[in-house]
């Protein structure tokens, strides 16, 4: 049976080095002759391709979602849809037709199923794209990116992961690395779910410590085993992170010191060449 190791890189806080750690891990694995697929799950602001100096060609997959569209001939302006929409995404001025506010709409489908007059049609809208880059023989980068103003980006992540897992089967990959977005929201949850291990990247500041605790809580809820990676470990107060590691019995897998070389490689898109893990 096909088995691929699924590793997530996350962190809660922004700018702590999730993408950097993801690429450094990928470098380490491929240098050990492993086949690696890196999946950039930060579909709102994907950056791994920039850090690896990759360019996008045509998307390999387009992701659509359904949204409501009014049929004015059938609409009786009864306001039932407005009263039922929990996203407050339908606006109706007195005596006027309801207006669907797409940037607040989650595309849940409630309105078109409950309209007593069958006046709400369904419209497919492009919400995301998947890009594939073969970085080298043993290393693929799969990127998801939302298109336009999208409220619910979680479903894009789920479809992106599905694409990556299929690719992993096809190319017989040893590892899939999921680089998650910042925060703990639905896009992050969907990236973390069903992974074998998650690295929680942090920095030795009260901000880093605060957000590390939150992401470790989330990983516990998701039943994903966690390990900590401390970035810029020689700046700030390392004890803050060590304390959380002890309290939560979470292993610190890597401590990455501040490095000018790393910062330079980051800003020049040359992280693919750095071997420090």
């Amino acid at each position, binding site marked *: 049976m096909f088995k691929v190791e699924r590793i997530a890189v996350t962190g809660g806080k922004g700018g702590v080095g999730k993408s950097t750690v993801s690429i450094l891990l990928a470098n380490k694995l491929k240098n050990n002759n492993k086949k690696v697929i890196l999946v950039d799950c930060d579909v709102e*602001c994907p950056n791994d391709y920039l850090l690896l100096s990759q360019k996008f060609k045509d998307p390999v997959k387009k992701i659509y979602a359904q949204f409501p569209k009014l049929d004015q001939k059938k609409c009786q302006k009864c306001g039932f849809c407005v009263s039922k929409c929990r996203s407050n995404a339908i606006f109706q001025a007195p005596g006027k037709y309801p207006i669907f506010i797409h940037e607040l709409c989650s595309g849940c489908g409630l309105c078109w199923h409950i309209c007593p007059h069958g006046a709400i049609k369904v419209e497919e809208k492009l919400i995301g794209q998947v890009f594939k880059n073969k970085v080298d023989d043993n290393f693929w980068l799969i990127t998801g990116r939302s298109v336009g103003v999208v409220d619910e980006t979680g479903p894009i992540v789920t479809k992106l992961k599905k694409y990556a897992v299929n690719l992993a089967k096809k190319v017989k990959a040893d590892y899939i690395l999921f680089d998650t977005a910042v925060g703990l929201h639905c896009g992050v*949850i969907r990236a973390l779910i069903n992974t074998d291990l998650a690295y929680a990247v942090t920095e030795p500041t009260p901000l880093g410590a605060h957000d590390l605790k939150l992401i470790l809580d989330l990983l516990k809820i998701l039943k994903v085993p966690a390990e900590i990676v401390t970035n810029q470990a020689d700046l700030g107060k390392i004890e803050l992170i060590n304390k959380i590691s002890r309290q939560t019995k979470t292993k610190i897998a890597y401590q990455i010191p501040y490095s000018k070389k790393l910062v330079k490689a980051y800003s020049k898109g040359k992280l693919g060449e750095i071997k420090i893990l």
Partner: protein
Amino acid sequence: MKQTKIAIASGKGGVGKSMVASTLAMLLAKKKPIVAVDCDVDAPNLHLWLGENEKWDKVEKISTNEMPVIDHSKCNLCGKCVNICAFNALEIIKNKPVVNKLFCEGCGACEAICPQKAITMKHIKNAEVKIKNNVWGFPLVSAQLYPGQTGSGKVVEEIKKRAENFNHQIMILDSPAGTGCPVIAALQGSDFALLVTEPTPSGLSDLKRVLQVIKHFKIPYGVVINKWDINKNLSGQIKKEFRNKLFGKISYDKRVFKAIASLTPILKTNLPAKKEIGEIFKKLKF
């Protein structure tokens, strides 16, 4: 009197939103009544930037979300709820429909479609609102979405509403990173957005991503380059591209990292960043 909402956003995380937001809030508070809102309800940090600990004047559990509860005695396993769910949050496991609460957005489509009326949406406490009048003389309204809960956008809407109750001329909104639902909720209705970026390919790319949202809502904006001197070439490019939108730049300084490691607000230091954010403050004509 006209009240003004100023949002601080960036797309990319960790580029200095909360540093800029907290310092501007302190400066503004010296002149006018203000209220600050930490819209990063996933991982709120603004209170730490204000040099505050976790002691709040008021903490209140709230519910901005509902979850389906299934009455299995009424369910006849027709599967309509599973099919309608746009978020794949329902599954039939061992002859029972089961809700995956991590995926559920609380939309209520399953409740509406169920022919047996076996599904009822029930409110759940998904976040807590935290309020504190700080030593800088203004209230901070913050919230924490409980880990694993959904509905961050609605939590942001709720704390914005709460902030309205405080006497203020200016509301400072510290947006989360990204471009999704909590960011949309934070930016919507803002009179001005200050976009913080850094001169890296990621910083610039994410600035352009969040600009799509800003332009969609037609919000006037200004750009601040943090750590501008780590890549002067790219900073030059950003300056050129956003010429009349440039509101200032902040130098890279390891001591800023050290200040925050010891919870010292920038305004209490003598670092160049203090003066540089002061210059940005002067440019904000509110």
